[in-house]
C-alpha cells in the first residue's frame, strides 16, 4: 500500500511566492535580465524592486488570447528583443501560474533563438506550499547550465531545507492563520534596552539576517553597540553576526563584505562570525553553541533579522529584544518567549540597490533616546 503522508494543514494567510523566490535567486546568480513568461502584472512589485538591484525584469505580457493560443511566439520575440536591447551576459526565463498551466515549454523558445549566452530556465509557478521550491528550481537550472557547482547546489539545498523547517516550526508556515501585528512600541522597547545597558547588564547583540535585509538589520546592532559605548558599557556587549564573506552566491558574499566594511569603519567589533548571509537558517545553531559555551549567564540579548531561527535553549532566561520585518512573525516570537518584539515594517524594499548600511527606525529611536541618557 502506498505510504500516506500526513496531510499538511491549510494555511490561509498570504505567503512568499515561489516565482518571486526564483527571481531573487536569479539576481543572486548575477543574471542581467529575466523574462517573466506570463501576464503583465505577475510579480510586479518584486520585479520592480529587483530592478533597484540592477537586474532588469521584462514580461511577455500574456493576455486572454495568449492563454488560449499559447505564448511561444511572443516569448521568442521578447527573448530576441532582450538580447538586442540589453546585450546581457546571462538571461533568465521564469514561468508563471498562467504559462505553466497551459503547458508552455520555455526551452522551445531558447532552442529556436539559440542565444550565445547562458539562459537559466525556471519552470515555476506560485502553487508550491513552500516558496523555497522556487529557489531550488532556479538553482537546479543554474546547475544544469554549469553556472554553479554541484557542491554549492547541495549546500544551498540543505540550507533551504532548514529554512523551510524554521518557517514551519516558528514562522510563517507554523499556523493555519497568523494575525499581522505591528509589534511593541519602538520607543518603549528602546527605553527598556537603554535601562538595562545603563544598569551595566551584560548583553548579546546578534545579527542573524537573511541576505540583503542585513543592510538594515545591521544598523540595529550597530546602534546597540554605539549607545553602549556612549554609556561606557561597551565591554558588556558581545557582538555576533552572520557576515562570513567566504560562503554563498556572489551577491551574498559581496554584501557581507560591504556590511563588514561599514561596521569596521564605525568601530564595531564582531566577536563571533556565526555564518554567511544565506546561512540564517543554521547560523542560529552556531550562535546557540557559542552562547552555551561562553555567555549562558548573560542578562539580555538583541536579535535582529530572523530571531525565530535561534534555538531557545541557552537564551530562555535572558530578556529578549527581537527585531523582525514580518508583521506575521510577532505572534510566533511572543509565543516562543521573546519578551520584546519590534517590527521594521517594509524593511526589504529599502535594502535593495544599496551597498551601505541603511538606517533603521529602531536604531534611530535608540540613538535618539540615548542622547538624553
Amino acid at each position, binding site marked *: 500500500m502506498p*505510504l*500516506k503522508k500526513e*496531510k499538511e494543514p491549510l494555511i490561509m494567510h498570504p505567503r512568499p511566492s515561489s516565482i518571486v523566490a526564483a527571481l531573487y535567486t536569479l539576481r543572486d546568480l548575477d543574471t542581467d535580465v529575466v523574462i517573466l513568461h506570463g501576464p503583465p502584472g505577475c510579480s510586479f512589485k518584486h520585479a520592480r524592486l529587483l530592478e533597484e538591484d540592477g537586474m532588469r525584469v521584462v514580461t511577455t505580457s500574456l493576455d486572454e488570447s495568449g492563454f488560449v493560443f499559447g505564448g511561444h511566439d511572443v516569448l521568442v520575440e521578447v527573448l530576441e528583443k532582450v538580447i538586442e536591447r540589453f546585450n546581457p551576459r546571462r538571461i533568465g526565463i521564469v514561468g508563471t501560474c498562467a504559462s505553466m*498551466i*497551459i*503547458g508552455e515549454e520555455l526551452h*522551445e523558445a531558447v532552442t529556436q533563438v539559440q542565444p550565445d549566452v547562458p539562459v537559466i530556465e525556471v519552470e515555476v509557478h506560485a502553487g508550491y506550499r513552500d516558496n523555497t521550491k522556487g529557489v531550488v528550481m532556479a538553482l537546479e537550472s543554474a546547475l544544469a547550465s554549469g553556472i554553479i557547482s554541484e557542491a554549492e547546489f547541495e549546500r544551498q539545498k540543505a540550507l533551504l531545507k532548514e529554512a523551510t523547517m524554521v518557517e514551519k516550526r516558528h514562522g510563517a508556515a507554523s499556523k493555519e492563520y497568523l494575525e499581522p501585528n505591528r509589534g511593541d512600541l519602538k520607543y518603549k522597547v528602546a527605553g527598556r534596552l537603554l535601562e538595562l545597558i545603563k544598569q551595566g547588564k551584560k548583553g548579546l547583540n546578534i545579527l542573524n539576517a537573511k541576505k540583503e535585509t542585513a543592510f538594515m538589520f545591521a544598523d540595529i546592532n550597530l546602534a546597540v553597540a554605539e549607545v553602549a559605548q556612549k554609556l561606557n558599557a561597551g565591554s558588556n556587549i558581545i557582538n555576533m553576526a552572520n557576515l562570513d564573506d567566504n560562503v554563498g552566491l556572489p551577491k551574498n558574499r559581496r554584501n557581507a563584505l560591504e556590511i563588514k566594511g561599514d561596521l569596521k569603519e564605525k568601530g564595531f567589533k564582531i566577536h563571533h562570525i556565526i555564518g554567511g548571509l544565506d546561512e540564517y537558517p543554521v547560523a542560529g545553531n552556531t550562535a546557540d553553541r557559542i552562547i552555551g559555551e561562553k555567555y549562558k549567564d548573560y542578562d539580555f540579548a538583541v536579535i535582529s533579522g530572523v530571531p525565530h531561527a535561534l534555538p531557545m535553549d541557552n537564551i530562555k532566561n535572558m530578556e529578549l529584544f527581537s527585531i523582525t520585518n514580518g508583521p506575521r512573525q510577532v505572534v510566533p516570537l511572543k509565543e516562543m518567549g521573546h519578551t520584546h518584539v519590534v517590527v521594521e515594517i517594509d524593511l526589504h524594499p529599502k535594502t535593495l540597490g544599496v551597498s551601505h548600511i541603511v538606517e533603521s527606525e529602531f536604531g534611530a529611536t535608540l540613538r535618539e533616546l540615548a542622547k538624553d541618557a
Partner: protein
Amino acid sequence: MPKQIAIYGKGGIGKSSTASNVAAACADEGYRVTIIGCDPKSDSSITLLRGRRIPTIMDLMREGIDIREEDIVFNGYKGVKCVEIGGPEPGIGCAGRGIIVAISLLKKISSAIEDTDLVIYDVPGDIVCGGFVAPVKKGLVNEAYVLTSGEYMPLYAANNICKGLARLEMTLNGVICNSRGALNEEKIVSEFSKEIGSQLLAFIPKDVLVQTCERDGFSVIENAPDSDIAAVYRKLARSIMGKRDGKIPVPLDDKRLRELTRI
C-alpha cells in the same frame, strides 16, 4: 533507448483498443512493454488487467501520497507495465495540467519508461491544449502513429493531428486504418497516407470480437489468441517493432481531403 510511441486519432476511433492489443501482441513476442494511459478516463490499460482499475497518478497525488514507482506501475498481461495518469471529472479542473504534472513525476521516479523495449502513450483523441502534447514536448515520444477510418471526419482529425505534429517537428511513422466499414476504405486511407508522406501500416477490419473481449476485460490477444483479428494486431505489432524511419507529415488542404473521401 526504448521505442517510445504515441497513437493519435479522433476520439472514439479505437486508440485504446489498438494500443492495448499492440501492447499484448508485443508482450507475446517477448518484448518488455509499458503502456501509459494519458486520458483522464483512465481506461487504456483496463483490458490488460482483466478489467481491474488501477489507482491513477493524479488520484494519489491529490491524496497527498509520497508516490513511489510501485504505487503507480502495475503488471498486466504477460508483464506489460500499466500506468494511468488519471485526472478530473469532465467539466472541472484542468486535465492538461494533470498530464504535465504526472509526466514530470513519471520521468523522475519511474524506470518503467526507460528500462523497457516499447513505451506506448495512449493520448486522448482531441489535443485540446498544451498539456495533451506533454509526452512529446518533454521528449518522451520518438515515434507517432495516426489511427483513422476512411470516413471524412476521422480523416479530418487525422489531418489536423498531422498539422500539430508538423508544428512540433515530430515525425509520423505510419497510419493505421481502423475500419468502420466505409466504402473503399482501405484505398482512401492508403492514398491519404501516401499524400501526407507516410504509409498505411495496417488495415484493421471491423470485428465484433474486439468489443466482446473488451466487455469482459480482455484484449483479443489474450482472450481470442487464434482469431483472425488477433493475427492483424500481431502483424501490426511486428510492423511497429520493425525498424522504420518516420517523416514529418505534410497535411492536406481541406479541398483535397474532401475529394479523397469521394473515391
